[in-house]
């Protein structure tokens, strides 16, 4: 019974944050359309990786959406490095969720976790492009 009460309390504490984050995500998905995202990539592997990581960090939503977008980006010629950086940042970096994460897990942890995840997204993008190129 204690475990049940403790779990309910945790969900009660989380509820306003959860609702807020969902509302913000829905708003961003309404305002930013896919064509606007695709126009940002110019063909430079390093710059595109950085741009990919930035967009992935900001763009919220289901990972499936990122796979669809990533597939489209590849088909129009965006480099694999940039697309992978975009995918990694999408699922590991959370600008929209940052306030909620900072509130629940601590500001210092959230800042460093998101920063390292952002840098990792660029490195993973470059490494994936390199490794897949060899295979």
């Amino acid at each position, binding site marked *: 019974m204690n475990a049940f009460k403790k779990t309910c309390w945790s969900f009660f504490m989380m509820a306003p944050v959860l609702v807020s984050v969902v509302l913000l995500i829905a708003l961003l998905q309404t305002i930013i359309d896919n064509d606007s995202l695709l126009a940002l990539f110019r063909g430079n592997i390093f710059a595109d990786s950085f741009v990919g990581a930035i967009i992935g960090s900001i763009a919220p939503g289901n990972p499936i959406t990122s796979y669809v977008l990533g597939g489209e980006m590849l088909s129009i010629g965006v480099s694999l490095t940039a697309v992978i950086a975009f995918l990694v940042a999408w699922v590991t970096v959370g600008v929209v969720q940052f306030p909620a*994460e900072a*509130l629940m897990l601590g500001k210092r942890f959230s800042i460093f976790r998101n920063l390292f995840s952002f840098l990792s997204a660029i490195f993973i993008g470059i*490494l994936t492009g390199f490794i897949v190129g060899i295979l």
Partner: protein
Amino acid sequence: MIRKLNRIKELKDMPGIWKFFAAVILLFGFIALLSPEIATNSLVKSVEIFKNMFSSLVLAFVFMFVFNLLVTDKVVKKYLQNDIGVKQCLIVSIAGIFSTGPIYMWYAYLSELKDQGANYGLISIFLYNRAIKLPLIPIMISYFSVEITIVFSVLLFIFSFINAFFINIFVKPQKS
């Protein structure tokens, strides 16, 4: 008595949470004045998001209930505090891979671990390995390729530990 004091402390911390909520509501109100269509579409989309995540919410509740039932403070202190070892990293990384639902749903569960002094590196490993979505692997393969999917997933797994290493340097655990 200690539990009641903790609850009071948590309620005192809630203003920050409610301020954030209030700020989002105000933002929506402002957008509704500027563009009712955007505000309406956003609200409809948010309802869709909640519907899609309902099953994940239930799963997260069950997961947290089982965790609270089985994992005592003693167990947390033994496995998740202080220095982290290979066994702990692997357990937490597997938990992250198998966890479902949006990341913010798991904040409450991780916040409890944090309050019990769980190592921040382990929390980071859990969050990072959530990027490896096993049920979505077939979808990723269909959009990219088997090679890209494997390399992507393996690198994510490896980088989760690299990130945890740096997190532990810069962020120290809190103890309640």
